[in-house]
């Protein structure tokens, strides 16, 4: 359902992503694991056709992200932790407006809202203006908006950032349930426990470099029998860092990466 190969992207001379490639099968959740500034958001933005890679190729739902952007966008839903809503629209108006952008009829949108209400317990959020929402309520509508057109591919980018425990649980459960059928989900996070709980396969990315991928058990094994995913992550990154001469200049690179983030907009700002 998703295929990325040799993706590269630089901002102001700093490589945010270099040689990233992975595949995600339908009906699975693929975890994109890495610390802030690793290149996860840049990768997802390339897949969502928001930015163009400097090199490499990617297909989403059978369409080329560079050549068939509109077809790709028709088939994806994106949720990230920094997404907001229009304060002066109600939840229902928000979903109708976005549904309209996907060419859905008002009746089809209304039927989908009923369905999503059952899945996400939208309740009050539908008739209240979004400006009055709590963070949890807001994220429910953000998720509902992303899936209002029932897309075959879903991207979650730090989607639980800033949520309380109940709202976080609701989003995690929804993501898990979302893989039913033929849907492919990419779950980008720096929270190891989320990846461990949700993901069928996990790709580790660090300083823009693709460190490796596999099931959680495979990664633990590859890291010398690490006790959990966090230990496996550090083991894999350390191994990769030992091979990477520029790891010694990590501090300087971090500073440059921050500057590039400000100018070009990849991740690193969210907590």
């Amino acid at each position: 359902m998703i295929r990325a190969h040799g993706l590269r992207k630089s901002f102001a001379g700093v490589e945010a992503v270099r040689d990233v490639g992975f595949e995600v099968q339908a009906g699975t959740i693929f975890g994109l694991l890495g610390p802030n500034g690793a290149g996860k958001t840049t990768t997802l933005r390339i897949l969502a056709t928001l930015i163009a890679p400097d090199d490499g190729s990617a297909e989403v739902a059978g369409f080329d992200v560079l050549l068939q952007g509109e077809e790709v966008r028709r088939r994806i839903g994106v949720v990230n932790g920094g997404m907001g809503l229009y304060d002066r629209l109600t939840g229902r108006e928000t979903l109708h407006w976005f549904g309209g952008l996907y060419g859905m009829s008002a009746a089809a949108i209304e039927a989908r809202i009923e369905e999503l209400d059952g899945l996400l317990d939208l309740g009050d959020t539908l008739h209240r203006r979004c400006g009055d929402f709590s963070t949890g309520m807001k994220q429910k509508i953000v998720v509902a908006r992303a899936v209002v057109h029932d897309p075959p591919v879903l991207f979650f980018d730090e989607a639980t950032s800033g949520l309380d425990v109940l709202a976080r649980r609701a989003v995690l459960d929804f993501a898990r349930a979302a893989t039913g059928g033929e849907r492919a989900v990419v779950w980008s996070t720096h929270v190891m426990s989320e990846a461990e709980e949700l993901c069928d396969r996990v790709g580790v990315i660090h300083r823009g470099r693709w460190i490796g991928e596999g099931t959680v058990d495979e990664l633990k094994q590859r890291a010398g029998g690490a006790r959990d995913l966090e230990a496996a992550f550090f083991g894999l990154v350390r191994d990769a860092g030992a091979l990477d001469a520029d790891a010694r200049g990590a501090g300087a690179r971090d500073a440059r990466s921050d500057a590039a983030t400000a100018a070009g907009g990849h991740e690193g700002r969210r907590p």
Partner: protein
Amino acid sequence: MAWAVARKDVLTTLRDRRAIISNLLIPVLLLPTIMLGLPLLLGGLFQREQASLTQVAVEGQAFLPDALRSALEAERVELIAVDDALGQVRDDDVAVALQVPEGFAEEVTAGDVPRLRLLRKTGNLESELAAGKVTQAIESYRQDLVAERLRSAGVDPAVLEPLTVETRDASRPQERSSGQLSWLIPFFIAIWALAGGQMTALDATAGEKERGTLEALLVAPVRRSEVVVGKFVATLLSGLSAAFMAIVGVLVGGMLLRGVFLPRLGDEAREMAATMGGSLSIGADGIWILLGSALLTAAAVAAMLIAVAMFARSFKEAQTYVAPMTFLLILPAMALQFSDLLDLGSGIYLVPLVNVMVLMDDVLGGAVAGTDVLAAWGTMLAFVGVLLAFALRSFRREGVIFRT
């Protein structure tokens, strides 16, 4: 799809109470107030000053000739004998005063040239009006004296008038009635196109970035060009509604002045009020050209707002970016009040924004050339196109859309 984008931005603007007040209510209330207020204030003041008894302090009243006293009283002037005329005017006890030197009446009778001193406050309207009445009385007295002296010398006073001059106003009716404030109309239209469109434009660009809604919009199957056009249309509608309300305000102000207030003023006060721009009258063609020019002004302003505000990280930052745009609009509008002193030439109709303001000024003055309309509108359409292309380029630049 562009209309769907515009519809949402218009709806969110309409639900903003501040936008409704500043876009719709203020222009329709403020313009008639300004249009009626100043001319009526001046006209009323002039009429009152003409009709009321004006107190004039006179230092040396005993030396005032009887004929001059009568001439002053005929102008509805009340003379008050004082010892310090200068102090009276300085302290605002009276608006104007006369200093009559000792022996003034005798010197006049003897055929000498005595000096009468008129004291007034320059820049004080009440003092200027009172001084006008006194000067008129003195002039009347002086002419009587001249005539009397000529007759006593056996000369017909008519010898002093070897010719007469008749002055006629050659301006068009619209030009005559548009008055000195006509430059304010294009100014208000431009300013309200900016003020009205600003809130929508900033909310639809920098506001979307700040809220984190822009990314959600851009991952929907909407082309960037449709996003730009949608946001441009929403901004244009907001700016246009405010500019339209400004024109309504002008027309309502003009109608109220002509129908209700001017008839109550005296002839001279009515003329003064009209001179100050109180009775604008625009024909049907003029209204269409005015509306077309307002539309293009609002379109250019909307395109500029979208193009500029998109660079900002936040609504607040965008406000600082668009603030200088006010000067871009104010400066040409201010220059219009001196347009009759400037040789603008036809080239002015090819300068974006300035051209439509000059065109609106022409409409209000009743002198519009078809070629100038075509030149100005054509230039403006091209200008709007260039600005929209620039805005689209910004919406396609990763460094701009993710600059948060």
